[in-house]
């Protein structure tokens, strides 16, 4: 099976973008977007890995569908926390919020 193709390379690029956004961004919404980008990268990677001559492996399709549901649940919870933090602090800047450091 061919592991390296256009889809998996794009997925690796997306993964890097997502990790960069989590490491470097300060806005809480952008952090949540970083998580979603990583989830999308994983989905795309499953599709790229499941590529066969006659279409995409049914296993990969099922993984992607289930992972979309799981990451939607995480997204909902993350946005709920962002709302709560905004109510507490009145800002979305994580450098002004982070009272917990060490």
């Amino acid at each position, binding site marked *: *099976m061919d*592991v390296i193709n256009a889809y*998996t390379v794009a997925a690796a690029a997306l*993964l890097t973008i997502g*990790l960069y956004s*989590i490491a470097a961004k300060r806005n*809480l919404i952008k*952090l949540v977007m970083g*998580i979603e980008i*990583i*989830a999308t*990268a*994983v989905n795309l*990677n*499953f599709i*790229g*890995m*499941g590529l066969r001559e006659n279409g995409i*492996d*049914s*296993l*990969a399709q*099922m*993984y992607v569908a*289930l*992972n979309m549901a*799981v990451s939607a*649940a*995480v997204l909902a*919870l*993350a946005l709920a*926390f*962002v709302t*709560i*933090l905004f109510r*507490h*602090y009145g800002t979305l800047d994580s450098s002004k*919020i*982070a*009272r*917990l450091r*060490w």
Partner: protein
Amino acid sequence: MGPQDALLVSFVFILITSLSDVLRRKLNYPNLPGYVALAGMISLLILILTIRDGVYRPLINSPLPVVELKVDEFSRFFTLIISILAVPSLLYSFSYIREESRASYYTLLLLLVTGLIGSVFSNDLFTFYCFWELASISAYSLVGFRWWHWEPAEASFKYLLACTVGALTVLYSTSLLYGITGTTNLDELSRILSKVGSSQIIAMSAALMIIGLGTTAAATPFHMWLPDAHSAAPNPISALLSGVVVKVPLYMLTRLMLSVLPFTNGLSYALIVLGVASSLLGNLAALIQNDVKRFLAYSTIANVGYIFTGIGACYRLLMIGATELAIDTAAGALSHLAVHALSKGLLFLCVGNVIEEVGSRFFASLEGYGRRMPFTAAFSLVALVGLSGIPPLVGYYGKSLITAGIAYKLEDLFSLIVLALVEANFALAAGYYAYFVFRMFKGRFHISREASKTALLSEFFIAAIIVFLSLQPSLLVEEARACAKTVLPG
């Protein structure tokens, strides 16, 4: 009768617990959801203890051979630890959670335990991911249960961010393995990968597995979420988080590293370095904490480090072919894991008693509780003695087996340094546990009221098990050895 039926029963109870909120308001019976959740948890545990070993496929007629649950000695060992800790935490919550929204608390607690048990039983990486996310999502919500205070809200968002990235890293690595082999089933993977042999992509996916599972288990460079989450969570949840939630990724790591993925030379060093670094950082940071729950949380990082080191040493021994000693080392790591889960859970509950009475988490305000709260003090002493690993007692065996695994064929400087650092860490940990005991009995404590009866009952349950294991340490070590034999190849 299989694990899927037990999980189904548990899901029915989860539904009843969340619906019982309506009945609670009508009957004006505040603790009803708690009792329903307790009934659900006990029936789940009884069902699990009756399941026979074997491989179960719930969706037998489906064309996709994906959902596969496996019950063996190893997963049974972990479910036993989870259940021994879950029931007391639920019981403890009866007097501790007084909020109106307690139905959601008990629902989430039951979901957490169900997710953990499901992820331990799953024999497939994607099933593991799904159950693990179920457990994690409930854990994030439970840490942020008191979201109207700033600390839980912030800690749970941090926890969510770190652990979701960790879980997605595991899933990305799963997708790489799927691309190479066409399957995510662990037995199939180990069969195919032993034929294919090691390659760069497999080594990369193994490294990603270590990073992802290390993040969810709080190994050192990725540990930042743990002290916040543990100290901001409600007390019974801290006990569960420290006792079992950080241990389930270690279960998957043990299985993947030691029996599924082919051996790569650099990874044994990576595991050992991660482990030693976590134990060093955990122990040193624990020394400077003012907050007693943060102190315990850093000590948890240190103990996760010991287990990591044990897994790494076992990996190295398997690579050089010393299988007998590798089994011993894995048994050491597993028995240390069990001892730490029980003792640290008990200690979090005991400290929780005192924090509830005093209303503060500062070390200084806890001084002297040993003389005024005799039962809590006795239970904390049991937990501290279990953790410190004084020679004839049970904690000693795990630590000595891990050290024996590292000390085998000490020819290079690296293993010598590792051995010295591990020994120094054990001594350091024993030292600050002794200091904790000293502060327990020193100084003035103003309150002389004991904790509630249900809290003491739940603590007594765990303490009795630790005392029993201390009197019969061979029982635990033999059980851990049997587990190691089912996992390790050959």
